[in-house]
Each structure stands twice: as structure tokens, then as C-alpha cells.
């Protein structure tokens, strides 16, 4: 699916695509760009975000797991390319788009947009403030209207 991101320098729009990763992509997801070993996610559903103007450049990745019995999508791992993290980042909202994409899948499957992730305890409040997740024991979750609001913001 196509999404609109914003350049940090001048807030101008920039078109991007989120789509399922292909086997050949694993060769370009190298440790010089990514800190985590994405090969370990090969058996999960992994999606990449690329710029429409440069589709061989992967700017971010999300790995999700579907738990149909619990009607939820879990975000197992999400990471942006090194040059899109922290103070160096040039484009805003990549993580928000990828999380919203997971929510969209959760709506499509009839889970009311129910998405979970397991935060480190120091980050729990930040996921809540930044994206609207709420506490659910060892996980934080988002669904319903909060999930629709996040999708409206990022997709």
C-alpha cells in the first residue's frame, strides 16, 4: 500500500510503499544498515517500507505474528534503517506507518484492529503516549477507536 511520509527538513510529502518482503530483500538488509538479525524473522510475516522513487532502498521493517485464536496481531520486531533513527533521521513517521499497517491487517482479519507488542518496562509509557497503546499485563495493546485514530494519522 502507498503511504505519505514527511521530510523533516521542510515537511514536504514523500511517497512510500509498504509491501511484503521478498527473499531477495534479505541480501540488502545488512548489518551496516540494521542492528537486528532479520534473517531470524524469515518464518514470520515481514513487511518493508521503501520510497516510491527508490524501491530497492528499505527504510524500515516490521515482523508480525497472527494469533487467530486470540484475534490479535503481535509486532515481534520493528526497526528503521540506521540513518532513519534518532537525531540523524531525515524522514518522519516511518514507525507510525508500520504500526498502523499492522493495525490495518488486524482490522482486515476482523480483530477490531487489536495489535500487541511487548515493551521493555522503561518504554511502556512512551508507547502509550506516542501511539495510544494501553496496558494489558506484560503486553501493551491498541484496538477500536484508538487504532482507527492512529491509522488516520499515519496511513
Amino acid at each position: 500500500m502507498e503511504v505519505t511520509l514527511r521530510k523533516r527538513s521542510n515537511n514536504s510529502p514523500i511517497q512510500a510503499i509498504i509491501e511484503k518482503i521478498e527473499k531477495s530483500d534479505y541480501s540488502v538488509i545488512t548489518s551496516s544498515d540494521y542492528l537486528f538479525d532479520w534473517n531470524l524473522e524469515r518464518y514470520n510475516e515481514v513487511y518493508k517500507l521503501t520510497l516510491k522513487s527508490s524501491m530497492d532502498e528499505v527504510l524500515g521493517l516490521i515482523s508480525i505474528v497472527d494469533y487467530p485464536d486470540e484475534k490479535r496481531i503481535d509486532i515481534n520486531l520493528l526497526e528503521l534503517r540506521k540513518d532513519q533513527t534518532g537525531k540523524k533521521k531525515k524522514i518522519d513517521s516511518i514507525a507510525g506507518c508500520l504500526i498502523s499497517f499492522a493495525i490495518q491487517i488486524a482490522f482486515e482479519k476482523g480483530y477490531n484492529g487489536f495489535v500487541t507488542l511487548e515493551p521493555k518496562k522503561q518504554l511502556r509509557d512512551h508507547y502509550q503516549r506516542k501511539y495510544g497503546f494501553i496496558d494489558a499485563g506484560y503486553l501493551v495493546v491498541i484496538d477500536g477507536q484508538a487504532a482507527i485514530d492512529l491509522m488516520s494519522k499515519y496511513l
Partner: protein
Amino acid sequence: MAEKKKEPTYEDLSKIYTDEEIVESFVLRSTLSEDEKKEAHKEFLKFRMDRLKNMSESDIILSNLMRMKIQIQNYIEQNEYNPRFDFSNQLKEYLSITKRTQKDFSEEIDIHPAQLNRIIRGKENPNVDLLYRLEKHSEGLLKAKSLYRLHTMKLESEMVNDEESRLAQYDRVKQTISLAKAS
């Protein structure tokens, strides 16, 4: 054998990034052991089941309409005709999700019940006025433009596959532009 990559922990990342920056760039893998997770998951499952049980009628309708909206979006994006997504079938689905009879719905959007019935049975094409009204009725969840696309995808499919009409119309053409064939 390839060496296992040493992955960063939260503590490693927090030496480079603030917590806000981590949240804007990462969701880290679980670090709980299987036993820890099993225990913690019991509590979570209770939360999840309660959450499902406590959904109001309105929550369920909204959730189902979101599913419908996203499935329509994906169908249009894939651009491959599927009769399941014909406007008439999606309208039937809409009435089922919103728990309305044809009579209720025809009153709510000010359309003659017989006309609505013909559209639902695929005997009459939807007009643009109906699509606007359905957009309003769904409080903007279903866009008139997307609904129109459902209709045009069906028309395209019918047109492309209607060899009989194509040949009949070809027969009526008396002269073509007679382009010279490239050698």
C-alpha cells in the same frame, strides 16, 4: 557456519538514543523465557477475552465496517475482478453488518424500496446519488469513490469478456484508419 549476530539490548540502545527515539525507531523482540511468558500470558488472555466480551453492539458494527472498508481498499488496489466485491454484494454485506432490513435502509436513505431491491439483486446499476447517500449513511467510512470503483470494475470485466458484442460492433465498422504495418 555463520556466526550468530550479537543483537543490541534496550540497555545498549539507551546509550545511543533517548527512550522517545527508541520508541520512534524500534519494537524489540521479547526477552522473556518460555516459562515467564506462559505465566504472564494467562493474565493477558483474561484481558483479551474480557475485551472481546465487553464490545458493545456499536463497537462490533464499527469493527465489521472497518474490515469491509479495508477489504474493499485492498480489492481495488489489487485491481483483479472478483464478483464477491460487486456493489450489490457489498451493499448486502453493509445491510447485514448494520443490521438493517431493506425497508429500514430505503427509508433512511430516501430511495424507493423496489429500486433498492433491484440494485441488491444486481438487476439495476447503482447511480451516483445512491453512492453519495451511502457514504453519508456510513458516516464517511465507505467512500462514494471506492463504491463507484466497485461498480466500474464489474462493468470493465463484463465489457472485456463480452466477445459477442465486440464482434457484433466490429462488424459495423466499415473502414479502419489503415495504418501501415511495421516491417
